[in-house]
């Protein structure tokens, strides 16, 4: 994947996404709902296509709210990455976002790291039916 400066696209994007060496970093906004989901998805997909991104990392360190619309965005990218042998990860989940992951079962689909990672196993056991 190229990791030099991108040309021509600076103006229309880079609101949520940052192209890193080897992956696309998505700074998930403070509130990820239906209202924000469309813009984030469009920006991420443009970069994924343009730079043949094979790994997407969603960073939740600035995120206070996410509902099912956010789940849809993550599952959608995860599915697209799956088609091309890539992967999706989530990092820096606070307690709230972790709860959303648990209730939706997203933690079984997407690898998580950082922020409360130490609690993952305990919580997963508690939630196992």
């Amino acid at each position, binding site marked *: 994947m190229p990791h030099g400066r991108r040309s021509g696209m600076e103006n229309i994007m880079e609101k949520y996404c940052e192209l890193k060496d080897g992956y696309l970093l998505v700074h998930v906004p403070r509130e990820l709902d*239906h209202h924000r989901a469309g813009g984030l998805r469009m920006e991420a997909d443009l970069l994924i296509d343009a730079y043949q991104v094979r790994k997407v990392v969603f960073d939740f360190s600035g995120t206070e*709210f996410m509902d099912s619309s956010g789940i*849809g965005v993550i599952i959608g990218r995860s599915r697209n990455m799956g088609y091309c042998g890539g992967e999706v990860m989530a990092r820096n989940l606070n307690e709230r976002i972790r709860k*959303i992951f648990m*209730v*939706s079962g997203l933690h079984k689909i997407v690898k998580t790291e950082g922020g409360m990672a130490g609690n993952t196993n305990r919580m997963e056991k508690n939630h196992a039916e």
Partner: protein
Amino acid sequence: MQSKNEMRMWFDARSVNEGFARVAVASFVAEMNPTLDEISDIKTAVSEAVTNAIIHGYERPEDKVLLSCVIEGDTVEIVVEDTGRGIPDIEKAMEPFYTTKPELERSGMGFSFMEAFMDDVQVSSAVGKGTSVRMRKKIGVQEG
């Protein structure tokens, strides 16, 4: 606490109002001294119901979503209504992962979230007439 307090509002079926609806309800229930977790639960449930009205209930942004909220003692009841398309099979619609809009990357989690985060969720709907989602939550019973 034996107080009763009620509010009612309606707004355009525009996605920008999803955040507004969450914040309005969160401020309204603040007098109940909910925990941050309880507030987040309520915000998520409101967001799901309002988003459903906007995405599934209506096609035109000028259509109105009605939201009402009643606090009675330690319980809050929130009703989100639309006069849109309606739901033909409510039981099926409430199943986890059931969605009629997979092409929009909907995952069919909305009702599951409402049920997970509120104590009780009742849906009534009529095709061509609209949908009403009534949710209740008791504040101050932090489980787990």
